[in-house]
């Protein structure tokens, strides 16, 4: 009864609804995160779940009994809540458990549980033993990102400005390769780049092999099991991730702007450089991030297309999990990878100016 008395003002006003909504959202999310990440166990966990329940109940009360202003202010929080619970439980909590695991150690090699022991040596190992793999991961991902930009930008441009009625069809064509399995696409490249396959045969006929070998792109007259193949695979697999954001950015550009620019500059190239390019940058920014970040953590391309000297950090993390059964070091490596990527992204966005991703 007293609760409802307390809530009565909230039920009327807009600010009240907003406050209740925001508070409930935060309480529920934190409670779920706390229980999922095991910050609290036993009675404390039950208490947290009760607090979350209280949050939900108060939202429901406002929704049922509140005035229209309050309900309206409440709506977004209500819409956001289920998704937030999922994200808190299955994204934030796992990241926390990963962090914890990275500072843990295992009692014996094949134990399932890890013990939290502030084991900073895991990070030392991650840095010292896997330097080359980290370096190669960023190098190959960077190369692949540049290549996807060079290949993808013109494609996005053509779809946006020349696509006309066929825009959606063309976009569909870009997305369709996605519907075959990532692995199968990569394996297809082993056929295409095979020693007896079409690409190598063409290069041989054109006598380009020795030239490419001197540059380091080919090894011993072959393309398979080289760094080139790995970068090629990465480029191919992440190309749609570059094309789509750039297209979204380009599509928003008013064509009349381009026409006006052409009138002003009387050269399509300059019009492009002065008008289209700057306006497309938000798409380029998004595309480069959506390409570089997953590529840096990839292990499939290196495994199928590379050789023992072209492995990336993803291969090492997978190996630490599977072969070495060393979850703590693997977690530390994952965290270092995330940290370096975050650092690069921050520097990168400073360079670009802050843009939103979509």
């Amino acid at each position, binding site marked *: 009864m007293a609760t409802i008395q307390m809530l009565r003002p909230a039920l009327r006003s807009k600010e009240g609804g907003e406050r209740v909504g925001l508070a409930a959202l935060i309480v529920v999310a934190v409670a779920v995160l706390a229980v999922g990440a095991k910050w609290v166990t036993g009675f404390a966990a039950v208490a947290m779940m009760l607090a979350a329940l209280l949050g939900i109940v108060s939202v429901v009360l406002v929704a049922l009994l509140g005035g229209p202003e309050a309900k309206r202010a409440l709506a*977004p929080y209500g819409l956001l809540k289920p998704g937030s619970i999922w994200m808190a439980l299955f994204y934030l909590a796992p990241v926390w*458990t990963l962090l914890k695991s990275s500072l843990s150690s295992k009692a014996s090699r094949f134990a399932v549980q890890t013990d939290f022991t502030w084991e900073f040596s895991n990070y030392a190992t991650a840095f010292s033993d896997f330097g080359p793999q980290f370096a190669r991961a960023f190098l190959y991902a960077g190369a692949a990102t540049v290549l996807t930009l060079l290949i993808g930008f013109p494609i996005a441009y053509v779809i946006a400005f*020349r696509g006309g009625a066929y825009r959606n069809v063309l976009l569909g064509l870009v997305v369709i390769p996605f519907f*075959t399995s990532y*692995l199968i696409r990569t*394996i*297809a490249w082993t056929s295409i780049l095979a020693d007896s396959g079409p690409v190598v045969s063409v290069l041989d006929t054109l006598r380009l092999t020795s030239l490419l070998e001197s540059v380091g792109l080919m090894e011993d007259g072959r393309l398979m099991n080289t760094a080139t193949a790995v970068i090629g695979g990465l480029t191919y697999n992440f190309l749609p991730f570059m094309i789509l954001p750039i297209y979204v950015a380009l599509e928003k550009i008013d064509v009349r702007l381009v026409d006006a620019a052409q009138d002003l500059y009387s050269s399509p190239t300059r019009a492009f450089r002065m008008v289209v390019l700057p306006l497309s940058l938000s798409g380029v920014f998004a595309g480069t991030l959506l390409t570089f*970040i*997953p590529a840096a953590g990839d292990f499939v391309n290196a495994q199928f297309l590379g050789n023992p000297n072209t492995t990336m950090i993803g291969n090492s993390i*997978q190996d630490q999990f599977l072969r070495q059964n060393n979850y703590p070091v693997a977690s530390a490596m994952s965290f270092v990878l995330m940290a370096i990527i975050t650092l690069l992204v921050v520097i990168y966005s400073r360079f670009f100016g802050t843009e939103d991703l979509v």
Partner: protein
Amino acid sequence: MSISTRRGRIGRILLNAYAVVGFAYLFLPIAVIVLFSFNKPKGKFNIVWQEFTLDNWKQPFSDEGLTSALWTSLKIAGLSTAIATVLGSMIAIGLARYRFKGSGAYEFLLVLPLTTPEIVLGSSLATLFLGQSIVEFGFTTIVIAHVMFQISFVALTVRARIRGFDWTLEQAAQDLGASPMRTFWSVTFPLILPGILAASLLAFALSIDDFIITFFNSGSTITFPLQVFGASRVQLPPQINVLASTILMVTVTIMVIGSLRGARAARRDARP
């Protein structure tokens, strides 16, 4: 004047040619996959072209492990897409329609999974699941993992699509006497439905295709990509290509039908 037009024209032709080459590049492996579904490999691996045969297509489901794995993948994708579409669309509508405190921070949170490498997403979820005993590794954990990254994709895609939506339409409907619920279902929802469908199609593709995150969280459940990977050290039967080509054809068909209907609707709307 004529010089710049000619340069412009050459530039335009070059650009179009470049784009065509780009599309060819996109579809080269797809063509290879379809082509090799007609291959009759000598050994256990379908990498080198031997001879043409229709046998594989006559028995596409002969590899039981592959077929059941594909079926599992489809079920997982269907379930996770459904959940993620609902949750993600709700988030998108909340973000796009309302301005409220904390929306900026929330958007940042939404983008976070997209900026985390898959291997980190997969391994962190695995450590979470290892530390509890409510769910076993398997179908459930895979669905949970897939929904997790699908929500971000769906929410951001739908939000981008409904950014231009005219929310005053809702006001108009309510002025005419419709309740908020009715307004939503009769006015808002049909108009934003294309965006939601596009997002869910993308999410479905991501789920079917997902390998790395599933790899860490699958237990003994086998999805299509996992089956291909697991067996790939021992064999690569042509049935893989057959099934992959089939999925491709089905999706292309759905897309074609979708765009045809969209074109027909657009034409119908344009009629006076």
